[in-house]
């Protein structure tokens, strides 16, 4: 199963993600979840970014919080709402919200 998981908060969801079984896992950072893509603690990026190579962050939610693409970890793809629709229908079979 190809599973896309929306992460909407900055609290660490790693333990939940570890329990999800997926052939392909996508993590889609929205709302305060985008801080996983932009914030380093003690020089280290969020461990969520190590879970999969398919990590996305919503551009509008990055900009609303006063940041831009240059603030985003290089492993994260910045996407629009239109891109999200394509991810939902074309890249993942199931989608979940954390």
């Amino acid at each position, binding site marked *: 199963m190809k599973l896309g998981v929306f992460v*909407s908060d900055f609290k660490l969801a790693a333990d939940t993600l570890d329990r999800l079984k997926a052939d392909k896992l996508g993590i889609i950072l929205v709302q305060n979840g985008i801080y996983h893509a932009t914030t380093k603690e003690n020089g280290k990026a969020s461990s969520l970014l190590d879970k999969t190579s398919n990590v996305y962050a919503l551009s509008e939610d990055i900009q609303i919080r006063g940041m831009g693409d240059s603030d985003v970890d290089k492993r994260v793809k910045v996407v629009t*709402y239109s891109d*999200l*629709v394509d991810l*939902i229908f074309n890249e993942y079979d199931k989608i979940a*919200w954390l």
Partner: protein
Amino acid sequence: MGTLTIGCFPGLVGNMAYDFALKLAEAAVNKGHKVNIWFSGNATGSVKAHQKHLKDYSTGEKYLKALIEKGVEICTCEACTVARGIQKPEGIEGVQWNAMHWYLAKIYGSDRVLQIGGE
């Protein structure tokens, strides 16, 4: 083209998850997909007509009506809505009122389902 059903449980107008649900719905319908939205819990507070639109709110009655005009089906949980003191005659025109079976039927007929929140 596919069908996306969004279950939106948290928040009133101005809530982040609520705004996200409506903006995702708009993006999907603009790309030709069929979209259904189910409001439950506190999200049902948004279906009362003539609420003041604060300038900082990105969504509201006009936004809901625009989605309905584009073909998005929006339904509010009647039990949750009346529990919050809102009666059907006070509701925004075009918003459907129904029970959980509406949501379940839409889920059954959808290609993708995104449920946001819920306690």
